[in-house]
Protein backbone atom coordinates (compact mmCIF):
# COMPACT_ATOMS: atom_id res chain seq x y z
CA UNK A 1 0.00 0.00 0.00
CA UNK A 2 1.23 3.43 -0.98
CA UNK A 3 1.37 5.88 1.91
CA UNK A 4 0.87 8.72 1.74
CA UNK A 5 -1.15 8.90 -1.47
CA UNK A 6 -0.73 12.31 -3.06
CA UNK A 7 -3.83 13.75 -4.69
CA UNK A 8 -3.36 17.04 -6.52
CA UNK A 9 -6.09 19.49 -7.50
CA UNK A 10 -5.62 20.79 -11.04
CA UNK A 11 -8.75 22.84 -11.80
CA UNK A 12 -11.28 24.42 -9.46
CA UNK A 13 -13.78 25.06 -12.26
CA UNK A 14 -13.97 24.98 -16.06
CA UNK A 15 -11.97 28.06 -16.97
CA UNK A 16 -9.46 27.86 -14.13
CA UNK A 17 -5.73 28.51 -14.68
CA UNK A 18 -4.43 26.36 -17.54
CA UNK A 19 -0.92 26.21 -16.05
CA UNK A 20 -2.10 24.69 -12.76
CA UNK A 21 -2.44 21.04 -13.84
CA UNK A 22 0.90 21.22 -15.66
CA UNK A 23 2.65 22.56 -12.55
CA UNK A 24 0.94 19.90 -10.42
CA UNK A 25 2.28 16.97 -12.47
CA UNK A 26 5.75 18.41 -13.10
CA UNK A 27 6.47 20.28 -9.84
CA UNK A 28 7.00 17.31 -7.54
CA UNK A 29 5.65 13.86 -6.70
CA UNK A 30 1.91 13.26 -7.08
CA UNK A 31 -0.11 10.08 -7.63
CA UNK A 32 -3.42 11.52 -8.78
CA UNK A 33 -4.53 14.67 -10.56
CA UNK A 34 -8.18 15.50 -9.93
CA UNK A 35 -10.08 18.18 -11.81
CA UNK A 36 -13.57 19.60 -11.43
CA UNK A 37 -15.05 21.01 -14.63
CA UNK A 38 -18.76 21.24 -14.04
CA UNK A 39 -20.94 24.02 -12.74
CA UNK A 40 -24.71 23.59 -12.65
CA UNK A 41 -25.47 25.40 -15.88
CA UNK A 42 -22.50 23.96 -17.77
CA UNK A 43 -24.54 20.83 -18.40
CA UNK A 44 -27.26 22.67 -20.33
CA UNK A 45 -24.66 24.29 -22.60
CA UNK A 46 -23.18 20.86 -23.22
CA UNK A 47 -26.59 19.30 -23.97
CA UNK A 48 -27.11 21.98 -26.63
CA UNK A 49 -23.69 21.32 -28.15
CA UNK A 50 -24.40 17.61 -28.20
CA UNK A 51 -27.81 18.05 -29.84
CA UNK A 52 -26.10 19.93 -32.69
CA UNK A 53 -23.17 17.52 -32.95
CA UNK A 54 -23.32 14.09 -31.27
CA UNK A 55 -19.53 14.05 -30.89
CA UNK A 56 -19.60 17.13 -28.60
CA UNK A 57 -21.02 17.91 -25.15
CA UNK A 58 -17.94 17.69 -22.93
CA UNK A 59 -15.25 20.08 -21.65
CA UNK A 60 -13.24 20.47 -24.84
CA UNK A 61 -10.30 22.06 -23.00
CA UNK A 62 -9.61 18.71 -21.41
CA UNK A 63 -8.34 17.22 -24.66
CA UNK A 64 -5.49 19.69 -25.42
CA UNK A 65 -4.63 19.53 -21.71
CA UNK A 66 -4.23 15.76 -21.99
CA UNK A 67 -2.07 16.25 -25.08
CA UNK A 68 0.22 18.41 -22.99
CA UNK A 69 0.19 16.21 -19.89
CA UNK A 70 0.01 12.61 -21.09
CA UNK A 71 3.76 12.05 -21.57
CA UNK A 72 4.35 13.34 -18.02
CA UNK A 73 1.46 11.30 -16.64
CA UNK A 74 2.74 8.07 -18.19
CA UNK A 75 6.29 8.74 -17.05
CA UNK A 76 5.24 9.62 -13.49
CA UNK A 77 2.50 6.93 -13.30
CA UNK A 78 0.01 9.64 -12.40
CA UNK A 79 -3.70 8.90 -12.75
CA UNK A 80 -6.27 11.53 -13.70
CA UNK A 81 -9.87 11.79 -12.50
CA UNK A 82 -12.05 14.50 -14.03
CA UNK A 83 -15.74 15.17 -14.58
CA UNK A 84 -14.77 16.70 -17.94
CA UNK A 85 -17.06 14.24 -19.74
CA UNK A 86 -20.05 16.51 -19.28
CA UNK A 87 -23.07 15.00 -21.01
CA UNK A 88 -20.93 12.92 -23.36
CA UNK A 89 -18.19 11.13 -21.39
CA UNK A 90 -17.81 8.51 -24.12
CA UNK A 91 -16.95 11.11 -26.75
CA UNK A 92 -14.54 12.79 -24.34
CA UNK A 93 -12.81 9.45 -23.70
CA UNK A 94 -12.55 8.75 -27.44
CA UNK A 95 -10.94 12.14 -27.98
CA UNK A 96 -8.41 11.38 -25.25
CA UNK A 97 -7.68 8.00 -26.84
CA UNK A 98 -7.03 9.71 -30.18
CA UNK A 99 -4.58 12.04 -28.45
CA UNK A 100 -2.82 9.15 -26.70
CA UNK A 101 -2.44 7.29 -30.00
CA UNK A 102 -1.13 10.36 -31.79
CA UNK A 103 1.47 10.69 -29.04
CA UNK A 104 2.57 7.09 -29.61
CA UNK A 105 1.19 5.89 -26.28
CA UNK A 106 -0.72 2.93 -27.69
CA UNK A 107 -1.10 0.29 -24.99
CA UNK A 108 0.31 2.59 -22.33
CA UNK A 109 -2.87 4.36 -21.23
CA UNK A 110 -6.24 3.00 -20.19
CA UNK A 111 -9.23 5.30 -20.23
CA UNK A 112 -12.12 4.78 -17.84
CA UNK A 113 -15.57 6.15 -18.54
CA UNK A 114 -18.27 6.60 -15.92
CA UNK A 115 -21.77 6.65 -17.38
CA UNK A 116 -25.24 6.86 -15.89
CA UNK A 117 -25.57 10.33 -14.40
CA UNK A 118 -27.40 11.72 -17.45
CA UNK A 119 -31.14 11.31 -16.82
CA UNK A 120 -32.50 13.63 -19.52
CA UNK A 121 -33.83 10.87 -21.78
CA UNK A 122 -35.29 8.97 -18.82
CA UNK A 123 -37.04 11.93 -17.22
CA UNK A 124 -40.65 11.03 -18.11
CA UNK A 125 -40.10 7.43 -17.10
CA UNK A 126 -38.63 8.59 -13.77
CA UNK A 127 -41.54 10.96 -13.08
CA UNK A 128 -44.05 8.28 -14.11
CA UNK A 129 -42.44 5.86 -11.64
CA UNK A 130 -43.44 8.21 -8.83
CA UNK A 131 -40.29 10.27 -8.24
CA UNK A 132 -41.63 13.79 -7.74
CA UNK A 133 -38.42 15.72 -8.55
CA UNK A 134 -39.94 18.62 -6.62
CA UNK A 135 -37.60 21.56 -6.12
CA UNK A 136 -35.45 20.84 -3.05
CA UNK A 137 -35.19 24.52 -2.17
CA UNK A 138 -38.79 25.65 -2.41
CA UNK A 139 -40.94 22.54 -2.96
CA UNK A 140 -42.33 23.59 -6.36
CA UNK A 141 -43.55 20.66 -8.51
CA UNK A 142 -41.50 19.64 -11.56
CA UNK A 143 -44.60 20.12 -13.76
CA UNK A 144 -43.95 23.89 -13.58
CA UNK A 145 -40.81 23.54 -15.66
CA UNK A 146 -40.95 20.04 -17.22
CA UNK A 147 -41.38 21.31 -20.79
CA UNK A 148 -38.40 23.64 -20.43
CA UNK A 149 -35.91 21.16 -18.98
CA UNK A 150 -32.62 21.17 -20.90
CA UNK A 151 -30.48 18.84 -18.82
CA UNK A 152 -30.90 16.47 -15.89
CA UNK A 153 -27.96 14.84 -14.14
CA UNK A 154 -27.65 12.88 -10.94
CA UNK A 155 -24.63 13.66 -8.80
CA UNK A 156 -22.58 10.47 -8.63
CA UNK A 157 -20.20 9.77 -5.79
CA UNK A 158 -16.85 8.06 -5.50
CA UNK A 159 -17.83 4.42 -6.04
CA UNK A 160 -18.11 4.28 -9.85
CA UNK A 161 -14.70 5.97 -10.01
CA UNK A 162 -13.31 3.35 -7.60
CA UNK A 163 -14.68 0.66 -9.94
CA UNK A 164 -12.87 2.25 -12.90
CA UNK A 165 -9.63 2.35 -10.88
CA UNK A 166 -10.07 -1.32 -9.98
CA UNK A 167 -10.44 -2.13 -13.67
CA UNK A 168 -7.07 -0.50 -14.28
CA UNK A 169 -8.04 2.88 -15.68
CA UNK A 170 -5.36 5.59 -15.73
CA UNK A 171 -7.49 8.47 -17.00
CA UNK A 172 -11.08 8.52 -15.77
CA UNK A 173 -13.67 10.83 -17.23
CA UNK A 174 -17.24 11.07 -16.10
CA UNK A 175 -20.17 13.40 -16.21
CA UNK A 176 -21.72 14.82 -13.06
CA UNK A 177 -19.40 13.18 -10.53
CA UNK A 178 -19.22 15.22 -7.32
CA UNK A 179 -16.14 17.32 -6.75
CA UNK A 180 -15.64 15.52 -3.42
CA UNK A 181 -16.04 12.07 -5.00
CA UNK A 182 -13.12 12.54 -7.37
CA UNK A 183 -10.80 13.01 -4.36
CA UNK A 184 -12.36 10.37 -2.11
CA UNK A 185 -12.23 7.67 -4.82
CA UNK A 186 -8.45 7.25 -4.96
CA UNK A 187 -8.30 6.94 -1.16
CA UNK A 188 -10.92 4.19 -1.15
CA UNK A 189 -9.06 2.42 -3.94
CA UNK A 190 -5.54 2.74 -2.54
CA UNK A 191 -6.36 1.98 1.09
CA UNK A 192 -9.10 -0.58 0.52
CA UNK A 193 -11.61 1.41 2.54
CA UNK A 194 -15.08 -0.06 2.80
CA UNK A 195 -18.41 1.61 2.26
CA UNK A 196 -19.58 1.48 5.85
CA UNK A 197 -16.43 3.06 7.25
CA UNK A 198 -18.29 6.34 7.50
CA UNK A 199 -15.54 8.27 9.29
CA UNK A 200 -13.10 7.42 6.53
CA UNK A 201 -15.65 8.30 3.85
CA UNK A 202 -16.14 11.62 5.65
CA UNK A 203 -12.39 12.26 5.91
CA UNK A 204 -11.95 11.76 2.17
CA UNK A 205 -14.97 13.96 1.54
CA UNK A 206 -13.51 16.78 3.65
CA UNK A 207 -10.27 16.40 1.69
CA UNK A 208 -12.29 16.72 -1.49
CA UNK A 209 -14.09 19.84 -0.27
CA UNK A 210 -10.74 21.29 0.75
CA UNK A 211 -9.22 21.08 -2.74
CA UNK A 212 -12.29 21.23 -4.99
CA UNK A 213 -11.82 24.96 -5.62
CA UNK A 214 -8.15 24.72 -6.48
CA UNK A 215 -6.05 27.60 -5.19
CA UNK A 216 -8.91 28.89 -3.07
CA UNK A 217 -7.44 26.73 -0.29
CA UNK A 218 -3.80 27.74 -0.87
CA UNK A 219 -3.98 31.53 -0.79
CA UNK A 220 -6.24 32.48 -3.67
CA UNK A 221 -9.26 34.65 -2.87
CA UNK A 222 -8.00 34.57 0.70
CA UNK A 223 -8.89 37.52 2.92
CA UNK A 224 -6.74 36.77 5.95
CA UNK A 225 -3.35 38.43 5.45
CA UNK A 226 -3.95 38.69 1.71
CA UNK A 227 -1.30 41.33 1.07
CA UNK A 228 1.46 39.16 2.51
CA UNK A 229 0.63 35.97 0.61
CA UNK A 230 3.74 35.43 -1.49
CA UNK A 231 4.24 34.90 -5.20
CA UNK A 232 0.65 34.71 -6.33
CA UNK A 233 1.85 34.87 -9.93
CA UNK A 234 2.55 31.17 -9.49
CA UNK A 235 0.25 29.85 -6.77
CA UNK A 236 0.82 26.28 -5.67
CA UNK A 237 -2.47 24.42 -6.12
CA UNK A 238 -3.34 22.18 -3.18
CA UNK A 239 -2.20 18.59 -2.74
CA UNK A 240 -3.67 16.10 -0.27
CA UNK A 241 -1.25 13.67 1.34
CA UNK A 242 -3.71 11.00 2.37
CA UNK A 243 -3.12 8.26 4.94
CA UNK A 244 -4.96 4.99 5.42
CA UNK A 245 -6.33 6.00 8.84
CA UNK A 246 -8.16 9.00 7.35
CA UNK A 247 -5.73 11.64 8.53
CA UNK A 248 -4.39 13.83 5.77
CA UNK A 249 -2.15 16.81 5.20
CA UNK A 250 -3.00 19.67 2.83
CA UNK A 251 0.12 21.02 1.19
CA UNK A 252 1.55 22.23 -2.13
CA UNK A 253 4.67 21.78 -4.19
CA UNK A 254 7.90 23.48 -3.16
CA UNK A 255 8.93 26.49 -5.21
CA UNK A 256 5.37 27.71 -5.63
CA UNK A 257 3.56 30.76 -4.31
CA UNK A 258 0.52 30.97 -2.14
CA UNK A 259 0.12 29.89 1.46
CA UNK A 260 -1.29 26.95 3.38
CA UNK A 261 -2.04 27.73 7.01
CA UNK A 262 -4.89 26.92 9.39
CA UNK A 263 -6.67 30.28 8.80
CA UNK A 264 -6.24 30.00 5.01
CA UNK A 265 -7.71 26.50 4.74
CA UNK A 266 -10.46 27.37 7.22
CA UNK A 267 -11.75 29.94 4.73
CA UNK A 268 -12.11 27.18 2.16
CA UNK A 269 -13.76 24.80 4.64
CA UNK A 270 -16.60 27.25 5.29
CA UNK A 271 -17.05 28.08 1.59
CA UNK A 272 -20.53 27.20 0.28
CA UNK A 273 -21.29 25.56 3.61
CA UNK A 274 -24.83 24.75 4.70
CA UNK A 275 -25.40 22.92 7.99
CA UNK A 276 -21.81 22.02 8.88
CA UNK A 277 -22.84 19.00 10.96
CA UNK A 278 -24.56 17.49 7.95
CA UNK A 279 -22.59 17.89 4.73
CA UNK A 280 -24.45 15.48 2.46
CA UNK A 281 -22.78 13.80 -0.50
CA UNK A 282 -23.70 10.62 -2.38
CA UNK A 283 -21.08 8.77 -0.29
CA UNK A 284 -21.59 9.90 3.30
CA UNK A 285 -22.92 12.61 5.60
CA UNK A 286 -19.81 14.38 6.84
CA UNK A 287 -19.67 16.36 10.08
CA UNK A 288 -17.56 19.47 9.61
CA UNK A 289 -17.86 20.30 13.32
CA UNK A 290 -15.57 17.33 14.01
CA UNK A 291 -12.65 18.53 11.88
CA UNK A 292 -9.38 19.23 13.74
CA UNK A 293 -6.74 21.36 12.03
CA UNK A 294 -3.08 21.78 13.03
CA UNK A 295 -0.13 23.47 11.40
CA UNK A 296 2.40 20.72 10.61
CA UNK A 297 5.25 22.70 9.09
CA UNK A 298 5.49 25.43 6.51
CA UNK A 299 2.59 25.25 4.06
CA UNK A 300 1.33 22.05 5.67
CA UNK A 301 -1.94 21.67 7.57
CA UNK A 302 -2.88 18.35 9.18
CA UNK A 303 -6.56 17.39 9.21
CA UNK A 304 -7.83 14.76 11.64
CA UNK A 305 -10.78 13.66 13.73
CA UNK A 306 -13.35 13.76 10.93
CA UNK A 307 -16.61 11.98 11.71
CA UNK A 308 -19.21 10.75 9.29
CA UNK A 309 -22.72 9.30 9.36
CA UNK A 310 -24.28 6.78 6.95
CA UNK A 311 -25.14 7.86 3.43
CA UNK A 312 -28.71 8.89 2.64
CA UNK A 313 -30.85 6.80 0.30
CA UNK A 314 -31.13 9.49 -2.37
CA UNK A 315 -28.97 11.30 -4.87
CA UNK A 316 -29.23 14.94 -5.74
CA UNK A 317 -30.30 15.66 -9.29
CA UNK A 318 -29.36 18.87 -11.00
CA UNK A 319 -31.84 19.92 -13.68
CA UNK A 320 -31.52 22.99 -15.81
CA UNK A 321 -34.44 24.69 -17.50
CA UNK A 322 -35.13 27.65 -19.72
CA UNK A 323 -36.28 30.55 -17.55
CA UNK A 324 -36.36 33.70 -19.70
CA UNK A 325 -34.11 36.54 -20.81
CA UNK A 326 -31.93 39.17 -19.21
CA UNK A 327 -29.58 42.00 -20.13
CA UNK A 328 -27.34 44.33 -18.16
CA UNK A 329 -26.29 47.77 -19.39
CA UNK A 330 -23.66 50.09 -17.93
CA UNK A 331 -22.53 53.72 -18.33
CA UNK A 332 -19.82 55.61 -16.44
CA UNK A 333 -20.39 59.16 -15.13
CA UNK A 334 -17.47 61.37 -14.05
CA UNK A 335 -16.86 64.12 -11.49
CA UNK A 336 -18.33 66.62 -10.75
CA UNK A 337 -21.55 65.21 -9.26
CA UNK A 338 -20.83 61.75 -10.66
CA UNK A 339 -23.33 59.96 -8.40
CA UNK A 340 -26.07 62.54 -8.99
CA UNK A 341 -25.64 62.21 -12.75
CA UNK A 342 -25.82 58.43 -12.59
CA UNK A 343 -28.97 58.60 -10.46
CA UNK A 344 -30.58 61.07 -12.86
CA UNK A 345 -29.73 58.83 -15.83
CA UNK A 346 -31.34 55.89 -14.04
CA UNK A 347 -34.51 57.88 -13.39
CA UNK A 348 -34.71 58.93 -17.04
CA UNK A 349 -34.11 55.38 -18.25
CA UNK A 350 -36.78 53.92 -16.00
CA UNK A 351 -39.29 56.54 -17.12
CA UNK A 352 -38.57 55.68 -20.75
CA UNK A 353 -38.95 51.93 -20.12
CA UNK A 354 -42.25 52.69 -18.42
CA UNK A 355 -43.46 54.97 -21.22
CA UNK A 356 -42.68 52.24 -23.72
CA UNK A 357 -44.99 49.95 -21.74
CA UNK A 358 -42.30 47.31 -21.30
CA UNK A 359 -43.05 44.66 -18.70
CA UNK A 360 -40.19 43.12 -16.75
CA UNK A 361 -40.10 40.58 -13.97
CA UNK A 362 -37.34 42.68 -12.43
CA UNK A 363 -35.37 45.88 -13.06
CA UNK A 364 -32.31 46.28 -10.84
CA UNK A 365 -30.14 49.40 -10.58
CA UNK A 366 -26.73 49.36 -8.95
CA UNK A 367 -24.14 52.12 -8.72
CA UNK A 368 -20.69 50.60 -9.01
CA UNK A 369 -18.37 52.57 -6.74
CA UNK A 370 -21.23 53.36 -4.36
CA UNK A 371 -23.47 50.43 -3.49
CA UNK A 372 -23.05 47.50 -5.91
CA UNK A 373 -21.35 45.14 -3.48
CA UNK A 374 -22.51 46.19 0.00
CA UNK A 375 -25.70 48.17 -0.61
CA UNK A 376 -26.60 50.67 2.10
CA UNK A 377 -23.95 49.15 4.42
CA UNK A 378 -21.33 51.02 2.40
CA UNK A 379 -22.65 54.36 3.67
CA UNK A 380 -22.89 57.61 1.71
CA UNK A 381 -20.29 58.11 -1.03
CA UNK A 382 -17.75 60.93 -1.02
CA UNK A 383 -19.49 63.92 -2.73
CA UNK A 384 -16.30 64.31 -4.76
CA UNK A 385 -16.28 60.68 -5.93
CA UNK A 386 -14.32 60.67 -9.22
CA UNK A 387 -16.69 58.40 -11.14
CA UNK A 388 -19.68 56.13 -10.73
CA UNK A 389 -20.80 53.34 -13.01
CA UNK A 390 -24.54 53.08 -13.54
CA UNK A 391 -25.45 49.41 -13.94
CA UNK A 392 -29.03 48.49 -14.83
CA UNK A 393 -30.24 44.94 -15.34
CA UNK A 394 -33.61 43.71 -16.56
CA UNK A 395 -35.20 40.28 -16.66
CA UNK A 396 -38.34 39.05 -18.42
CA UNK A 397 -39.97 35.87 -19.62
CA UNK A 398 -40.16 37.18 -23.17
CA UNK A 399 -37.23 38.28 -25.29
CA UNK A 400 -38.87 41.38 -26.77
CA UNK A 401 -38.82 43.78 -23.76
CA UNK A 402 -35.25 42.80 -22.94
CA UNK A 403 -34.22 43.40 -26.54
CA UNK A 404 -35.89 46.83 -26.46
CA UNK A 405 -34.16 47.69 -23.18
CA UNK A 406 -30.80 46.89 -24.77
CA UNK A 407 -31.46 49.77 -27.22
CA UNK A 408 -32.30 52.29 -24.47
CA UNK A 409 -28.81 52.58 -22.94
CA UNK A 410 -26.79 54.15 -25.76
CA UNK A 411 -29.21 57.05 -26.43
CA UNK A 412 -28.50 58.34 -22.90
CA UNK A 413 -24.99 59.20 -24.04
CA UNK A 414 -26.27 62.08 -26.16
CA UNK A 415 -29.70 62.74 -24.66
CA UNK A 416 -29.06 62.31 -20.93
CA UNK A 417 -26.87 63.73 -18.15
CA UNK A 418 -23.35 64.94 -19.08
CA UNK A 419 -19.80 63.61 -18.58
CA UNK A 420 -20.74 60.09 -19.58
CA UNK A 421 -18.34 57.53 -21.00
CA UNK A 422 -17.44 53.85 -20.82
CA UNK A 423 -19.79 52.47 -23.45
CA UNK A 424 -17.21 51.03 -25.84
CA UNK A 425 -18.67 47.55 -25.34
CA UNK A 426 -21.71 48.57 -27.36
CA UNK A 427 -25.29 47.50 -26.83
CA UNK A 428 -25.98 45.18 -23.85
CA UNK A 429 -26.15 41.53 -24.83
CA UNK A 430 -29.51 39.82 -24.47
CA UNK A 431 -28.88 36.54 -22.69
CA UNK A 432 -31.03 33.46 -22.37
CA UNK A 433 -31.42 32.48 -18.72
CA UNK A 434 -30.99 28.79 -18.02
CA UNK A 435 -31.86 28.22 -14.39
CA UNK A 436 -31.04 25.46 -11.99
CA UNK A 437 -33.53 23.10 -10.35
CA UNK A 438 -32.19 20.84 -7.59
CA UNK A 439 -34.17 17.70 -6.73
CA UNK A 440 -33.73 14.28 -5.14
CA UNK A 441 -33.99 10.81 -6.65
CA UNK A 442 -33.78 7.41 -4.91
CA UNK A 443 -30.33 5.90 -5.35
CA UNK A 444 -31.74 2.71 -6.83
CA UNK A 445 -33.34 4.67 -9.69
CA UNK A 446 -29.90 5.59 -11.04
CA UNK A 447 -27.74 2.95 -12.67
CA UNK A 448 -24.11 3.70 -13.26
CA UNK A 449 -21.85 1.86 -15.63
CA UNK A 450 -18.09 1.85 -15.98
CA UNK A 451 -16.15 1.03 -19.10
CA UNK A 452 -12.38 0.88 -19.46
CA UNK A 453 -10.80 1.18 -22.89
CA UNK A 454 -7.22 0.76 -24.06
CA UNK A 455 -5.61 3.54 -26.00
Amino acid sequence: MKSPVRIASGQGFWGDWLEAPYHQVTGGPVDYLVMDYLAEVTMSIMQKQKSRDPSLGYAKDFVPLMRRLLPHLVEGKIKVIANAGGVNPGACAEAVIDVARSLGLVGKVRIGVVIGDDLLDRLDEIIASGVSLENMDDGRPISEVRDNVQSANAYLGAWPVVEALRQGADIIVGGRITDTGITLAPMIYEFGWEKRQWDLMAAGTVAGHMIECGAQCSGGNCLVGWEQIPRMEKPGYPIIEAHADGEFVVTKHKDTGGRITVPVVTEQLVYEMGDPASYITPDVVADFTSIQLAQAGKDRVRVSGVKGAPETDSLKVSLSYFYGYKAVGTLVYSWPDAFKKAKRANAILRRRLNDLGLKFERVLTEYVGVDATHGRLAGKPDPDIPEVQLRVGVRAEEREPVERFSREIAPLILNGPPSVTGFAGGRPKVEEIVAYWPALIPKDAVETRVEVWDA
Partner: protein
Amino acid sequence: MRKTREATKKVQLVKLAHARSGDKGDTANVGLIALKPGFYPLLAKKVTAARVARHFKGIIEGDVERFELPNLNALNFLLHGALDGGGTISLKTDAQGKVFSTALLRMEIDVPRSLKL
Protein backbone atom coordinates in the same frame (compact mmCIF):
# COMPACT_ATOMS: atom_id res chain seq x y z
CA MET B 1 -23.14 43.70 46.07
CA ARG B 2 -24.27 45.14 42.76
CA LYS B 3 -22.43 43.76 39.78
CA THR B 4 -20.81 46.59 37.87
CA ARG B 5 -21.13 46.42 34.12
CA GLU B 6 -17.82 46.10 32.38
CA ALA B 7 -16.85 49.07 30.25
CA THR B 8 -17.16 48.31 26.53
CA LYS B 9 -16.05 49.67 23.21
CA LYS B 10 -17.43 49.24 19.70
CA VAL B 11 -15.29 47.24 17.33
CA GLN B 12 -15.94 46.44 13.71
CA LEU B 13 -15.91 42.69 12.96
CA VAL B 14 -13.12 43.14 10.42
CA LYS B 15 -10.78 43.62 13.43
CA LEU B 16 -11.96 40.36 15.02
CA ALA B 17 -12.65 37.98 12.17
CA HIS B 18 -12.13 37.05 8.57
CA ALA B 19 -14.75 35.55 6.32
CA ARG B 20 -15.59 33.83 3.07
CA SER B 21 -18.95 33.59 1.36
CA GLY B 22 -20.54 31.63 -1.44
CA ASP B 23 -23.91 30.60 -2.81
CA LYS B 24 -26.42 27.77 -2.91
CA GLY B 25 -29.27 28.81 -5.15
CA ASP B 26 -30.81 32.01 -3.79
CA THR B 27 -29.04 31.61 -0.44
CA ALA B 28 -25.67 33.16 0.39
CA ASN B 29 -23.53 31.61 3.09
CA VAL B 30 -21.01 33.55 5.14
CA GLY B 31 -18.40 31.72 7.17
CA LEU B 32 -17.11 34.05 9.89
CA ILE B 33 -13.78 32.97 11.38
CA ALA B 34 -12.21 34.44 14.52
CA LEU B 35 -8.79 35.99 13.89
CA LYS B 36 -7.71 34.70 17.32
CA PRO B 37 -9.25 31.73 19.17
CA GLY B 38 -9.95 34.10 22.08
CA PHE B 39 -12.33 36.13 19.92
CA TYR B 40 -14.59 33.18 19.13
CA PRO B 41 -16.70 33.28 22.33
CA LEU B 42 -17.34 36.98 21.72
CA LEU B 43 -18.44 36.33 18.15
CA ALA B 44 -20.63 33.43 19.26
CA LYS B 45 -22.28 35.64 21.88
CA LYS B 46 -22.71 38.85 19.91
CA VAL B 47 -23.10 37.90 16.28
CA THR B 48 -26.46 36.20 16.59
CA ALA B 49 -28.74 35.22 13.71
CA ALA B 50 -31.12 38.02 14.76
CA ARG B 51 -28.29 40.57 14.78
CA VAL B 52 -27.13 39.48 11.31
CA ALA B 53 -30.71 39.62 10.02
CA ARG B 54 -30.91 43.25 11.25
CA HIS B 55 -27.57 44.04 9.64
CA PHE B 56 -28.80 42.81 6.25
CA LYS B 57 -32.37 44.16 6.56
CA GLY B 58 -33.53 45.44 3.18
CA ILE B 59 -30.60 43.71 1.49
CA ILE B 60 -31.83 40.13 1.84
CA GLU B 61 -35.44 38.97 1.56
CA GLY B 62 -35.45 35.82 3.66
CA ASP B 63 -34.37 34.89 7.16
CA VAL B 64 -30.95 34.12 8.62
CA GLU B 65 -29.78 30.80 10.06
CA ARG B 66 -26.65 30.38 12.17
CA PHE B 67 -24.49 27.30 12.76
CA GLU B 68 -21.54 27.00 15.13
CA LEU B 69 -18.17 25.43 14.35
CA PRO B 70 -16.25 25.88 17.62
CA ASN B 71 -13.62 23.44 16.30
CA LEU B 72 -12.72 25.98 13.61
CA ASN B 73 -13.48 29.07 15.75
CA ALA B 74 -16.07 29.84 13.12
CA LEU B 75 -19.75 30.59 12.67
CA ASN B 76 -21.66 29.86 9.49
CA PHE B 77 -24.60 32.03 8.43
CA LEU B 78 -27.15 31.24 5.76
CA LEU B 79 -28.74 34.36 4.31
CA HIS B 80 -31.88 33.28 2.48
CA GLY B 81 -33.32 35.23 -0.42
CA ALA B 82 -30.06 37.12 -0.76
CA LEU B 83 -29.23 36.79 -4.44
CA ASP B 84 -32.19 38.01 -6.55
CA GLY B 85 -33.02 34.44 -7.49
CA GLY B 86 -29.40 33.35 -7.50
CA GLY B 87 -27.00 31.97 -10.09
CA THR B 88 -27.95 32.69 -13.67
CA ILE B 89 -31.27 34.35 -12.80
CA SER B 90 -29.76 37.11 -10.66
CA LEU B 91 -29.14 40.58 -12.05
CA LYS B 92 -26.84 41.53 -9.18
CA THR B 93 -23.14 42.28 -9.58
CA ASP B 94 -22.64 39.83 -6.75
CA ALA B 95 -24.92 37.15 -8.16
CA GLN B 96 -23.00 34.40 -6.38
CA GLY B 97 -22.79 36.10 -3.01
CA LYS B 98 -19.02 36.31 -3.05
CA VAL B 99 -18.77 39.56 -1.06
CA PHE B 100 -21.48 39.12 1.56
CA SER B 101 -18.45 38.05 3.58
CA THR B 102 -16.96 41.53 3.71
CA ALA B 103 -20.41 43.11 4.05
CA LEU B 104 -20.81 41.18 7.31
CA LEU B 105 -17.37 42.35 8.47
CA ARG B 106 -18.73 45.92 8.48
CA MET B 107 -20.87 45.10 11.51
CA GLU B 108 -19.88 46.65 14.85
CA ILE B 109 -20.19 44.79 18.14
CA ASP B 110 -19.61 45.79 21.76
CA VAL B 111 -16.52 44.17 23.26
CA PRO B 112 -14.86 44.66 26.67
CA ARG B 113 -12.73 47.80 26.64
CA SER B 114 -9.83 45.68 27.90
CA LEU B 115 -9.92 43.41 24.83
CA LYS B 116 -6.59 43.45 23.02
CA LEU B 117 -6.91 43.54 19.24
